[in-house]
Every structure is written in structure tokens, then in C-alpha cells.
């Protein structure tokens, strides 16, 4: 029987990072993966959608290139070659996945292919073979959860119901696409397929997209998407679905939306198959409960990533994986859920960390919000990006920055400096006095900091 110090079930960004860290700290590690290393993020999530977004951005840029002084492109016949796009996506994914394989080899981590069935906390069975381990890290992730809509099961057989994974395996770009949205990925898909030329109808039970994000940013994005041609049906009640279309109750009227494909990106549910015998403590939605050391209700069994239902984000999963690996290796390591950046990859991108001014006031902060528009930034203007802004939320006592919300291209990169400053409990005074290179979009951070103290320079 093979014996390991640590067995990780699931090779996604939670599991594979935990495995590498544990191996670096001296453990003998194996990772059990039923599909591809890299998990949803690398294979069907973060990375593939970003390759799609790159193409859609390029496509949009080429369409508008005349204004930027480029001639000779026949934009009439311009279209996205979907299969070539998917081929490029596969290339990017393969490269990253094989990269993990290399890292595993380098760290002497064994990969066991197959579906894991946990016998007890020290024994795991994969395809009739039993592996022994001292410690177990569960990183099995989550999968899409569909809302209950009458007729959905029958419709699924038709192949016209798609979700994040199958959306990237379509043969063609659907002409008509209905998105049943509930989470941030639905918004990203709306942005992508709209840009690819689909007529997108976005159906949601909520009153607006991204309810948990800074509201002006969410509203601005929704407005931008509307302008780009996405049709929003908000506050909708999902009544039924059939070949005839999706029936919703909207503004007290029944409406029917017929499409080629129906993309569901609603909520997620934990992958707990194979873990039954452990009988771990779970929350009401079935996610495994973990403590600050990422340990589950069973000593020596850890749960990282989507499986614990805390934040369904790859960067949180990786961070949790490192905490679990460190604890296993005898370090006392605690997961800090304070200051988790959240990005919505649309065009422009939304990036957030910390509190909104409403949340800050609710928590008793004497808080100020300082906004600076992208339209006053030279670099953004030169790149033709004018939709967007930054908002800094600061506590008036010391000027500590407690929230940063950016809507702009590159905001996913700019936000990192905000996270670092907030991690170090920096203040608007520190940022105002930081020399930020010109011209960059990052200058909006400094401008807004001046705004929080007194007034921005360039406004």
C-alpha cells in the first residue's frame, strides 16, 4: 500500500498549491484528480474566459481602429473564428496545466488519476487501490447549482442548457443566448458573448447585477452592458422552461424568451461525492465547515477552496491551501479573510477590496468616500477608455484606507497596490505622498487620495 504524509483530493488552485507547499515543507504528497490538474479555474474558468476576453477586446479594438488611425481593415467581414479561438484557449490551458505537472515533478508530488473515495481519514481508495495518508486535504471544489425551474430536467437532454464548462465547448457562437444569472461569472459571460455577437438576454431574480459590489460600479457596468446591447430582465421569477423558451414573470406579466442556448450561471454546490464516510460537519448548504487553520471537524482533515463555501475564488483557495499545508507541517498558520480582492472581468474591469462606504458606516466608521473619474486620467484617455472611476473609502480618524473600488481597464492589476497598502494599514496621506509614475492609470489612486484629504490635483 502506498503511504503518504499528505493526500490532497482535487488538483485545482486550492489543492495543487497546498500540495506544492506541503512538499516544499518536507512532506511526501500525492494529489488525486479525476479530470485535469488546475481544476475549474485553469480548465473551464478563470483562464479560458480570459483568453476569450482577450479576443473580444481585440475584436472590439479592431472594429474601432479607424478612430485610432488605422486604415485598410475591412470591418464588414470582420468576425470571430470561434473554433480558432477555442484552439488558442486550449493551447493556453494545456500550457498552464502541463506547467503544474512540471511543478509536481519538481516537488516529487505523485498524481493519482481517478475518482477518490475516502474510506477513513487515513485511507483513500482510487480505482480499487488503497492509499494511506497521515493528513488529508479536501479540495474537491464545487460545481454549478441550477435553480429549480419546471421543465429544466427535460430541457437538459436537448443539450441547449449550458453552464460555464459546456459554454466553452460550444460548436458555434449562439445567435440568441439567454443567461440565467446569479453570480459574477454570469456577468462575465454576458460581456463575452455580447462581444462575440450573440444577442444576450440576461435574466436575474435580483434587481441589479453584482448586488454585493459597490453599487455605483455595478450600476455603471450594467448601464455599459445595456449600451453594448445586453438586454436585462431583472426581478424576474423563473416559471418554466421548454423548447418554447424560458417563461418568466416580470413586472407582473408573463414573458417568454426563446434562445438557441440557455446558459445557467446561478450558484454553486460543493462536490462531496466520495467523502460521505468522513461524516464531516457541514453548513446548511452542504459546504464543509473549516476553522481558521482550515481544519475540518475531523482532526488531520483539512478543507480548502470552494468546498468550504467561504469565497469561491481561486486566489482565496490557494491562500487557504498554503495555510493548510503550513499547519500540517507544524507551523501555526491562520487564514485571514480580511482584504480579499474581487475582480469582475468585463470591459472595463471591476476591482474591489475592503468596504464600501455604506458598509463602513454600518460598521461604525466615520468614513469618507473620494471618487476620481477615469475621464480625467491622461493614460486612460489616450487608450480611449473613459468609462470608469476609482473610489477610496477612508476612515477619517487617521485617514486609513478601508476600501478601494476601481472600474477601469487594468483595474485588476491596479487593485494589488491598494490591497498591499491596506494590508499595511496605510492611509490616504501615504498614498497622496507616493510618487506614482506618469502617465499611468494608477495615478487615479493618488488623485483620489488627495481628494480624500482635500481636493484632487487634476479636477
Amino acid at each position, binding site marked *: 500500500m502506498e503511504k503518504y504524509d499528505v493526500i490532497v483530493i482535487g488538483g485545482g488552485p486550492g489543492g495543487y498549491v497546498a500540495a506544492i507547499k506541503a512538499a516544499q515543507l518536507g512532506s511526501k504528497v500525492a494529489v488525486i484528480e479525476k479530470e485535469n490538474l488546475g481544476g475549474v479555474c485553469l480548465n473551464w474558468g478563470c483562464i479560458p474566459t480570459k483568453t476569450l476576453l482577450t479576443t473580444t477586446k481585440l475584436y472590439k479594438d479592431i472594429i474601432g481602429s479607424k478612430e485610432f488611425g488605422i486604415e485598410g481593415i475591412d470591418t464588414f467581414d470582420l468576425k470571430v473564428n470561434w473554433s480558432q479561438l477555442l484552439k488558442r484557449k486550449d493551447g493556453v490551458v494545456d500550457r498552464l496545466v502541463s506547467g503544474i505537472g512540471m511543478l509536481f515533478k519538481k516537488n516529487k508530488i505523485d498524481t493519482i488519476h481517478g475518482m477518490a473515495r475516502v474510506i477513513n481519514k487515513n485511507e483513500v481508495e482510487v480505482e480499487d487501490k488503497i492509499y494511506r495518508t497521515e493528513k488529508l486535504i479536501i479540495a474537491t471544489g464545487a460545481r454549478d447549482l441550477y435553480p429549480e425551474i419546471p421543465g429544466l430536467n427535460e430541457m437538459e437532454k436537448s443539450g441547449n442548457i449550458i453552464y460555464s464548462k459546456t459554454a466553452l465547448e460550444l460548436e458555434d457562437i449562439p445567435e440568441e443566448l439567454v443567461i440565467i444569472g446569479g453570480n459574477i461569472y454570469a456577468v462575465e459571460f454576458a460581456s463575452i458573448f455580447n462581444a462575440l455577437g450573440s444577442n444576450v438576454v440576461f435574466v436575474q431574480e435580483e434587481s441589479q447585477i453584482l448586488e454585493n459590489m459597490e453599487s455605483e460600479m455595478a450600476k455603471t457596468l450594467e448601464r455599459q452592458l445595456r449600451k453594448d446591447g445586453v438586454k436585462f430582465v431583472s426581478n424576474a421569477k423563473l416559471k418554466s422552461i421548454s423548447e418554447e423558451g424560458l417563461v418568466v414573470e416580470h413586472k407582473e406579466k408573463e414573458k417568454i424568451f426563446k434562445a438557441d442556448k440557455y446558459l445557467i450561471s446561478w450558484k454553486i454546490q460543493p462536490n462531496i461525492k466520495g467523502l460521505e464516510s468522513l461524516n464531516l460537519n457541514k453548513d446548511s448548504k452542504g459546504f464543509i465547515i473549516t476553522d481558521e487553520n482550515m481544519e475540518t471537524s475531523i482532526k488531520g482533515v483539512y478543507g480548502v477552496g470552494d468546498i468550504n463555501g467561504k469565497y469561491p475564488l481561486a486566489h482565496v483557495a490557494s491562500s487557504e491551501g498554503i495555510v493548510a499545508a503550513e499547519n500540517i507541517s507544524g507551523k501555526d498558520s491562520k487564514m485571514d479573510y480580511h482584504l480579499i480582492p474581487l475582480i469582475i472581468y468585463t470591459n472595463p474591469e471591476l476591482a474591489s477590496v475592503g468596504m464600501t462606504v455604506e458598509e463602513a458606516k454600518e460598521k461604525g466608521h466615520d468614513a469618507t468616500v473620494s471618487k476620481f473619474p477615469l475621464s480625467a486620467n491622461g493614460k486612460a484617455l489616450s487608450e480611449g477608455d473613459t468609462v470608469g472611476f476609482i473610489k477610496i473609502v477612508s476612515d477619517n480618524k*487617521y485617514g*486609513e484606507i478601508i476600501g478601494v473600488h476601481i472600474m477601469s481597464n487594468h483595474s485588476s492589476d491596479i487593485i494589488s497596490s491598494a490591497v498591499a497598502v491596506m494590508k*499595511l*494599514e*496605510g*492611509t490616504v*496621506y*501615504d498614498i497622496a505622498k507616493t510618487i506614482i509614475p506618469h502617465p499611468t492609470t494608477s495615478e487615479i489612486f493618488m488623485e483620489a487620495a488627495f481628494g480624500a484629504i482635500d481636493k484632487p490635483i487634476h479636477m
Partner: protein
Amino acid sequence: MRFEFKFPDVGEGIHEGTIVKWLVDIGDNIKEGDSLVEVETDKVTTEIPSPRTGKVLELKGDAGDIIHVGNVFVVIEIEGEDSEKSSDSQGISDSIDEEDKKKELDEKEEVVEEETAGVVGEVVASSEEIPPSTEGIESPKEDIQTKKVLATPVARAMAKDLGIDINTVEGTGPNGRVMKEDIRRAKEEHLKPKVKEGLENRERPKTKALVLEGSPESEDLYERIPLTRIRKTIAEKMSESRFTIPHTTAMDEIDISKLDKFRKTYKEILKEEDIHLTYLPFIIKAVIRGLKQLPEFNSSLDELNEELVLKHFYNIGIATDTERGLMVPVIRNADKKSIVELAKEISDISTRAKNNEIDLEELRGGTFTITNYGSIGGYFGIPIINHPEAAILGLGRVVEKPIVKDGEIIIGKVLPVSLSYDHRTIDGASGARFINILKDLLMNPDMLFLKS
């Protein structure tokens, strides 16, 4: 070369000391072993000798300041060593040949030993707990010379506002960075009446600040005196014992007329040898007999592991009244010492305790304590056990009393004893038995010599 002398770890859980007074001035040339400073720790007041010969460059802190273990408190310019070589982790130049290197290394070892002995001679004896003398030169990451504490901007501003010295705050952020939460915590701790760490986990009534009637306090009516470190230690130890151990006390009178006669016979003779023979050595002998017969009196209760730890050695603590407060020096292996040896050792340690010359090591490792409050006055008492020991014997004043013997009243010498013991591990019957053993032996000193 600059040598940074850090306040040595003197063991016994001592983390800090208060500077009583500097014994040198900046610019003084000092020799290795010269006393630099008088420091009061939780347990003792002591002089810290210099580990090096050189010139005093800096004295960090004034009388009354607290210095922490590991903090640089004296900087000494050491002659003959180039300051640039301070980066050399061993403080040894590469240019010197092997012979010299070896010699220097040897010397260094000697220095370490001497330093150990020096510091220890005054403070503590366990050499393994003292960092080597080269510590000021090595490990640049611990260099406190770069004064700047890692702290966040908000933490700095908050510390300034709240009047907290950020240098004294322990940071919990990455790489020990002081975060705003740390300042908040420091402030709370600052406001809270100090309860010594380590004891804080124990459940016991929360200490409250004393509120005096008729505030604002009138200076004429009240006077607030800050507790000395020794007083704080005594207070903590007493509370710890009282709140942990359910005490019970057995009392009795012992007719020591025969012992008194015996003592008087030899007292004068021994006086010529400068030996002061009191009752105490005899009582120690009797106690040891009791401890051997009833080992639970020479034990400690390990609450966590639910075990009784019996000790096969007999170290008797002698509670001693000093100007600065109660001290309990320990007579080691008292069972292996003669009456005369015990008498000598008692007068030695009590004199040294009174003169504040006691080593920290001499205050450690007791297994049973005797408190002789009777030397000052009083008859019975309820002594508090010296935690984690199991029992303590209190001795009252020896008086002449009428004693009924064989139907006749005679005048006898009576010693009142009060034995407090840990009632969790010792039953009342055992308490009575212990007293009986003492009684038998002290009433008939012949038996004491036969049995000891």
C-alpha cells in the same frame, strides 16, 4: 568595535528588570567583570557585570526604567578590534592566522564562561540559559540598533494618540509588524490592572482598580505607592497558591523541653566555632523524617496530567523576612546534612537574603517550606503553601507553659506548630500523622538522632 551588551536571560521566567542604578558612567573604562548596573528583577536585586573590557559608550535607560531580556542596555567600545569587522559573525578577523584564531576562540570560550559565571554568580547559575557573549555581534536581523520598529502608519498614529510607546508593543503582523490591533490591545492592557502573564489563564476573581472614597483622591488622606517587582511577585505567588490550593491547617503544641536542654548544652560550645544553634535544624530533621514517611507531603500535583509528582529529594525552603519583603532561600538536600551543617547554612542564607546577596538559583527548587514567624512573635498561624509544593510548616514562638505530666503540672518549653497542606492530595488523617511524627521526634530528641 562596538559591543552591544544585551540584558541576559537569567531564566526562571524573568523577562525584564528595573534599573536601580548605574554603577558606571559613559566614558568610563571598565574591565570585564566590573559591575555595570544594579537591576531589580522579579526575584532579586543584582549587579550585572560587564562581559567585556572596554570603554562605556552608551547606557540605555535611567533608573526606574524597565529593560527586557535581549534588549541592548550597554554599548561598550572594545579595544583592538576594528569596527568594520563587526559584520564578521564571530567577531574574528579573517586576516589573523589559524593559530591566533584558535587562541582567540579559546579566549572567547573563556569569556563566555566567565561571563556566565559573572552574571550567574550574582543572578543565576544555569549557564545554558545565558546567551553567549558574542550575541551583540552576531545575527544582524536581531539588531536592535536600527531602533525603528516595524509598524503600520495607522498603528504609529494611534500609538502617538494613546500615549503608547510603540517600541514596547509586540507586533502580530507579518514579520512582527505592529498593527493597529496591537496598539488597541496594548492600550487595553495598559488600562487593566496588571496581572502577570502565565497566570492570566487561571480562573480567579478579576482584579479591579481600587476605588477610594471621596474622590478626587486627597493626597493627605491617601498615598499610592507603586509595588516593587519583588512585592508584585510575592502578591502573585500568594494569590496563585491561595486560589489554586485548598489549604487546610493542623495545629498543635509540642513540648520541646528535652530538645531545649540538649540545644543549650551545645549552643555555647558551638558558638565558639561561630555556629548559631537554633531549634530550626532539629525541626528540619524531624520534617524530613515526616516527608520520608509520608511522601505526599513532598510532592506536587500536576493538574493537567492528573498525576501526583513525588520528589525523591528534600530541599527545604526557609521563609526569610527581609527589608524588601519575603524571600524563601532553599537548603538543598537537607536530608544529607548534619544538624551543624544545617545550622551553618541557615545562618548563611538568611544573612545573605537579608543583605540582598542571594542567588536566584538559591530561591529555586524547594520541595517543602518552613516559616518561622515565631522568631518575631505569634503563636499559631495559617501559613500559605509555597506553590507548587504540597505543605508548609509554620513555627510560633517557643514559650514556657504549664504542662501536665504524669499527673503533675510542670513548666515546659512549648513549640506551637501550624501545618498547612494541600487538601486535594493530603487527607486530614495524614496531616495529623505528620504532626505526630514531628511531635514524637521533637519531644524525644534521642529518637530524632536515632531515626535520622
